[in-house]
């Protein structure tokens, strides 16, 4: 008794899943072993009691032992199936019902074999022996308990599908009630026989209440419902058969003796049998009544799934075409269309067709037919798309379609495609269909739009990255240090616009007495400007070191650049060679802004008005004719101000240009200052004039002051 109690305690632990140390497999094995042991001992004890009661021999075992063993057997079976079925991962309802069917089938076959044996024995003595009958009865009892418990566990999973708190609580009460009834079986209290009936009644009632939970039925498709009906009907048949068989045996045995394990006395067995019967009956009826509407539920589910696919397509799909393909598939499967097409309207009038079960020439025939019959308003938003189309199709020969719906697909308010759905039967579509496809096409439009926005964003990102690279290239091309000389001081300033421009300046010491200075402005902006600027730098560093005169330099630079500049690009340049030995500056201008020069002796500022032509404008031998070689002798305190058109063309908020006059104004007041002072004054005045740190074109100056 003590060991039984501790075993029950363990069982309770198992039921709560607290004992996780023992694996599922071990529990299944252990419970199997216990079930077999308890059943075998039940058979022996019960048979010996029956034997002693019929042959008037004092029983060797107490009458209270068999009920204990029976309860033990039931609990073992319960644990076994709980771990076999309840903890299984699969939640396929038909699979669960299949399990019920199989356990019932096995039990029935075994039971039928014994019935056959009994029939073969006929009216022999053995067949009428009450002990033999009791033996067969006990076998049947064991089988039926196995079947009942497995069915109970399956029913539990079905009932608790999409459970609520209340349902869980009710189920727990029911389960504990059943468990207590097993304990109750152990104590024989005749004084409380009325209580037994009440207890039975309560359990049956809770069972009926629980049987109202049939949510799983809705999730079966048509085919599964038929399977369900078949399996449940068979389960009910088994239940009936077993009840009939057991009752037969019980009646036969009770004619001889009452001291056997009569299942009719067991509250547990009666309650569980009635529960299984009621739930089977309920589910059978519910499934049966749900059969005609199952296609509707399936369709709704399909719609939801399709809709989800469409909205997800934006994140996962590689192209707009794929979005249209999904729209086509989803629409067809949702309204069960026989054929469909999507026409992507291209700007050049050549449409792209996505088709299903229809050829392009048939589409063209149908479209031509509509045009010929002056059918309008099909593709307008808001019109009833199911109306009248079938009538027009009926007059078209060579097509077997009799009904049609068409939907426009709008992207950013512009119709980009048309979806058409066709059916063989007339009046094949209803308003419900039209509504759902309308949402589909709207979603597809949004998907396409989002898809484009995403690609645009990526493109922009790429462009920005490119600009960043170009800007880095540009700034790295400008010299870190300028070649100074005891005869002159040189300062430079360059601020690149956001949209990369192509201003360039550089110096090169040709020899001890000669220094080459260059300032350039590449036409255009962006990456190509930065590219051309690097070409200019290459040309400068390769030609200047040779020590050629400025005109030759520009002519050769023009030759070199003519082969690599694109058609509409040119580079303006001013090139200077300062000879400190002769105190002479040689210079030439190739389309660059006129050089501003201060003659300290005359105290005069002037813009050099020499001729010139931008590099790359004339890409043949005639170029040198347009270039002048100039030179002047410099004196201490003379100033050369070089700049790019970014400065003279800088605009203020009113749209006025900074211009040559303002520049001259500022610079001329600073004639006695060092180069850096002049530069600072000019740049400060420029920013003050524009009133913004944002610049449209590069600001570049290079100022030389002679000593």
């Amino acid at each position, binding site marked *: 008794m003590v060991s039984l109690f501790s075993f029950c305690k363990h069982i309770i632990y198992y039921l709560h899943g607290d004992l996780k140390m023992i694996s599922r497999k071990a529990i299944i094995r252990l419970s199997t072993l216990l079930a077999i042991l308890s059943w075998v001992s039940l058979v022996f004890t019960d048979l010996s009691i029956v034997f002693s009661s019929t042959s008037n021999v004092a029983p060797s075992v107490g009458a209270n032992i068999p009920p204990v063993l029976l309860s033990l057997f039931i609990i073992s079976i319960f644990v076994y199936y709980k771990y076999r079925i309840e903890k299984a991962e699969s939640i396929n309802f038909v699979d669960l019902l299949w399990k019920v069917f199989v356990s019932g089938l096995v039990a029935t076959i075994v039971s039928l074999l014994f019935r056959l044996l009994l029939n073969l024995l006929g009216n022999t003595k053995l067949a009428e022996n009450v002990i033999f009958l009791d033996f067969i009865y006990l076998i049947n009892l064991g089988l039926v308990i196995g079947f009942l418990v497995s069915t109970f566990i399956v029913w539990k999973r079905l009932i608790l599908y999409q459970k609520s708190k209340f349902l869980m609580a009710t189920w727990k009460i029911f389960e504990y009630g059943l468990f207590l009834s097993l304990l109750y079986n152990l104590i024989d209290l005749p004084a409380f026989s009325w209580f037994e009936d009440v207890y039975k009644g309560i359990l049956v009632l809770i069972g009926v209440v629980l049987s109202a939970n049939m949510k799983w039925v809705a999730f079966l498709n048509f085919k599964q419902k038929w399977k369900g009906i078949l399996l449940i009907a068979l389960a009910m048949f088994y239940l009936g058969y077993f009840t009939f068989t057991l009752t037969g045996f019980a009646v036969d045995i009770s004619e001889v003796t009452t001291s056997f394990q009569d299942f009719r006395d067991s509250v547990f067995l009666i309650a569980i049998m009635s529960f299984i019967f009621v739930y089977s009956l309920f589910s059978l009826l519910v499934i049966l009544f749900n059969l005609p509407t199952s296609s509707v539920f399936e369709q709704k589910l399909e719609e939801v799934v399709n809709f989800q696919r469409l909205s997800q397509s934006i994140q996962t799909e590689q192209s707009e075409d794929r979005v249209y393909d999904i729209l086509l598939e989803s629409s067809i499967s949702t309204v069960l269309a026989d054929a469909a097409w999507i026409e992507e309207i291209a700007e050049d009038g050549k449409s792209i067709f996505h088709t299903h079960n229809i050829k392009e020439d048939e589409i063209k025939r149908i479209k031509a037919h509509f045009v010929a019959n002056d059918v309008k308003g099909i593709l307008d938003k808001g019109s009833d798309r199911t109306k009248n189309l079938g009538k027009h199709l009926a007059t078209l020969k060579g097509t077997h379609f009799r009904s049609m719906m068409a939907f426009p697909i709008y992207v950013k308010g512009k119709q980009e495609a048309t979806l058409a759905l066709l059916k063989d039967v007339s009046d094949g579509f209803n308003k419900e269909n039209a509504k759902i496809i309308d949402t589909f096409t709207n979603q597809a439009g949004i998907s396409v739009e989002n898809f484009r926005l995403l690609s645009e964003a990526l493109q922009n990102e790429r462009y920005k990255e490119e600009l960043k690279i170009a800007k880095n290239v540009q700034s790295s091309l400008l010299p870190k240090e300028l070649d100074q000389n005891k005869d002159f001081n040189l300062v430079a300033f360059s601020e690149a616009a956001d949209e990369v421009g192509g201003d360039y300046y550089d110096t090169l010491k040709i020899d001890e007495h000669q220094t080459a200075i260059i300032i350039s402005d590449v036409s*255009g902006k962006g990456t190509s400007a930065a590219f051309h600027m690097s070409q200019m730098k290459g040309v400068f560093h390769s030609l200047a070191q040779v020590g050629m005169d400025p005109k030759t330099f520009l002519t050769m630079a023009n030759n070199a650049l003519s082969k690599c500049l694109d058609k*509409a690009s*040119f580079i303006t340049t001013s090139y200077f060679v300062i000879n400190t030995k002769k105190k002479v500056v040689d210079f030439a201008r*190739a*389309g660059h802004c006129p050089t501003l020069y201060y003659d300290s002796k005359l105290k005069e500022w002037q813009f050099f008005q020499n001729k010139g032509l931008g590099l*790359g*404008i*004339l890409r043949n031998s005639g170029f040198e004719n*347009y270039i002048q070689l100039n030179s002047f002798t410099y004196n201490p305190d003379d100033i050369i101000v070089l700049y790019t058109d970014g400065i003279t063309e800088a605009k203020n908020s009113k749209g006025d240009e900074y211009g040559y006059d303002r520049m001259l104004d500022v610079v001329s007041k600073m004639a006695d200052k060092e180069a850096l002072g002049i530069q600072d004054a000019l740049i400060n005045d420029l920013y003050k004039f524009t009133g913004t740190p944002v610049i449209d074109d590069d600001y570049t100056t290079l100022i030389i002051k002679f000593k």
Partner: protein
Amino acid sequence: MVDVKRIQEGKYDLITIVGEVDASSSIELDNAIAEAIKSGNKAFLVDCTSLEYISSAGLGVFMSYIEDFKKNDIHIVLFGMNEKVRNVFEILGLDQLLTIRGEKEEAKSAL
């Protein structure tokens, strides 16, 4: 923004440029000149009276067709530029390659 129109006026085609030619609008100017060359006409007057501003990209367009003008024996005369625009042409040296005149009558006789 720029507006480029071409109309036939006697022996020559008159191209009128109105507005500002910058990097983006230079494409329009480019298309107009390309069309003018395609038309097969050999004489063009370009009215720059209302050309308010021209950027280096705009100059690049004129520059890129100088070779084509020569090759196809096309005579083209620009006229009516304001001082600023003319200055831009001159600094770059394009005035040495293109015929630029002050008034329309002068331009006609230069054809």
